[in-house]
């Protein structure tokens, strides 16, 4: 991928601070990533690894206790961290949109589908109600909802989960954003609907030249959908790079463990390997590498010093001492992340 990235995160950190300021949770810790137009970036990690906080950080829709403490988010040449709330509001839904994971809860039960789908068009483009509704009908058609005309006047409870999630998707693309962030959009859908929905997202991406950030814990989906992958553990990106390379030759022990824990169909002899232990308590992080307590290749120095991001190939980094180049161990940082 050539040219400047669409979105470039540079050592971005978001912390949750308790009311007394005594407990600090580094939910997103020095994350460096980038994504180009038309590309799909998968972000995987266990629950609580900071994936969703990262997504909410990009849109700056964080809960009151969370603060972006450092870093930059360059989007189309502008730093989103320094934008005012009002400027940010014009980015949300218009240039960057997001799909939430729970289709049953993310639509307002008291307003019609037409109202909710046309809302961003009316707010961001100042369209009249009638025009916005016409476009909403087109959007429902685009996400393959049958008889969109009647659906527009219906309420969320009159629809199935799969249909609602497609409507949330329609809201996402309503103003033709440049970047769409999908936070586990298929977790609560059943398998056949999941496949349909993923195909739909892929089609929309092609049709609109969207960049897509796909947050999931399903590595199968990553293999199918994504070009780039970032693996998160305890708030950090521990490995990132092109999906095919990471799947073939994972550099970080955590990525390896994740890949080994995927069940393989038709191979009854292969036992599933679980990762022993629990993710660390994010408010009292151990010194050194946060994965060290669970790592099978742990070395003494892992418990002392935190590994920096080492370049392990073209556009690939790994935060692991094993990836340290043999030549003197010089710390090599990458400016452009996974690009």
């Amino acid at each position, binding site marked *: 991928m050539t040219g400047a990235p669409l979105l470039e995160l540079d050592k971005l950190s978001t912390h949750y601070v308790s009311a007394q300021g005594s407990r600090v949770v580094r939910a997103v810790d020095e994350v460096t990533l980038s994504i180009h137009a038309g590309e799909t970036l998968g972000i995987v990690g266990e629950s609580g690894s900071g994936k969703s906080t990262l997504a909410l950080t990009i849109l700056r829709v964080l809960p009151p206790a969370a603060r972006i403490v450092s870093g930059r988010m360059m989007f189309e040449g502008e730093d989103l961290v320094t934008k005012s709330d009002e400027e940010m509001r014009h*980015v*949300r839904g218009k240039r960057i*949109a997001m799909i939430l994971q729970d289709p049953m809860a*993310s*639509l307002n*039960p008291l307003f019609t589908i037409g109202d909710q789908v046309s*809302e961003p068009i009316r707010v961001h483009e100042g369209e009249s109600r009638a025009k916005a509704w016409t476009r909403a009908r087109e959007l429902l058609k685009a996400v393959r909802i049958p008889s969109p005309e009647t659906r527009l006047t219906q309420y969320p409870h009159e629809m199935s989960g799969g249909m609602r999630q497609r409507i949330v998707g329609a809201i996402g693309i309503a103003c033709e954003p440049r970047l769409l962030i999908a936070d586990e959009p298929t977790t609560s859908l059943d398998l056949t609907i999941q496949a349909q929905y993923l195909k739909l997202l892929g089609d929309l991406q092609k049709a609109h030249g969207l960049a897509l950030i796909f947050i999931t814990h399903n590595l199968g989906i990553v293999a199918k959908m994504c070009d780039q992958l970032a693996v998160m553990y305890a708030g950090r990106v521990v490995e990132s790079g092109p999906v095919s390379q990471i799947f073939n030759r994972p550099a970080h022990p955590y990525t390896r463990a994740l890949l080994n824990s995927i069940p393989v169909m038709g191979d009854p002899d292969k036992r599933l390997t679980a990762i022993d232990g629990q993710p660390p308590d994010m408010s009292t992080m151990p010194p050194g590498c946060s994965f060290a307590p669970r790592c099978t290749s742990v070395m003494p120095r892992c418990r002392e010093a935190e590994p920096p991001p080492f370049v392990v190939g073209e556009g690939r980094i790994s935060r692991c001492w094993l990836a340290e180049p043999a030549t003197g161990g010089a710390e090599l940082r990458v400016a452009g992340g996974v690009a």
Partner: protein
Amino acid sequence: MKQYIIRRSSYSLLSLFLLSLTIFFFVRVTGDPATLLVEPGASAADIAAIHQRFGLDKPLWTQYGLFVWSLFQGDLGQSFYYQTPVFELYLDRLPNSLLLAFVAMSLSLLIGIPAGIMASVQVGRFWDGFGKLFTLLGQSLPSFLVGLVLILVFSVYLGWLPSSGAGTPLHLIMPAFALGWYFAASHMRLTRSSMLEVLGSEYIKLARLKGLPQSMIIAKHAFKNALIPVLTLAGINVVVMVNVAVVVETVFAWPGIGRLLYEGITFRDFPIVQGVVIMGGGMIVIVNLVIDILYAIIDPRIRLES
């Protein structure tokens, strides 16, 4: 479902029975009404005549039986003092009580809902703190004290408002406020917590992600959802208001049902006290019964538990 309604209704009847029993014996503990109905120094014969006239000479259980029997026939009895049916007196005063309740309710909603929204949007900041003080005072200050302070300030010192009676809109202001404050506080608290719950929901998050202005998120998406429980409470509170206005109606000499009850108590007018209490209790029992049945219709889990 049918079984549930039958069971629930029999509970309601049981509560009404216990209420009738309690109120019947409690009023009789207050003393002999005959002594208040005759001239001072009246002869024992006169008093006995009055006892006989009102059936107070019969054994208590017989009196109670007669009371319940006439209740079943829809008769609340006849006032000792006014010499007219209690039900007529009740209907006579009802419009005044409803008017006061309506104004106090409107006031409580007009104050409580916006204040609750402000507090929820400003959690932990000035308006939330101010709101907490407002609810604390509203729910802990007795309404007679509020009433007396209002009279002292607005009638005695400032001379702006009439201290008692009914007839003009000016007469309504102080009693409505004294009665409405408590309810404004309770509506405010519920609006605040209901708003906070709604503001934490996924659809509000999506509204934010859509880039809607904060004012639109609050006024359109959050408010409408948060209003549902508040309106439910307000509906129940109207009934409660009509019945708890005794103190306020007494302080401001407002000719409503509460004042009627107060008169009944001072004159030991047993039928009035019994009648007003049974009517009030009946209303509350019926409202609760209807709500319980509605919940069971809405939520299948409640039906299954029975």
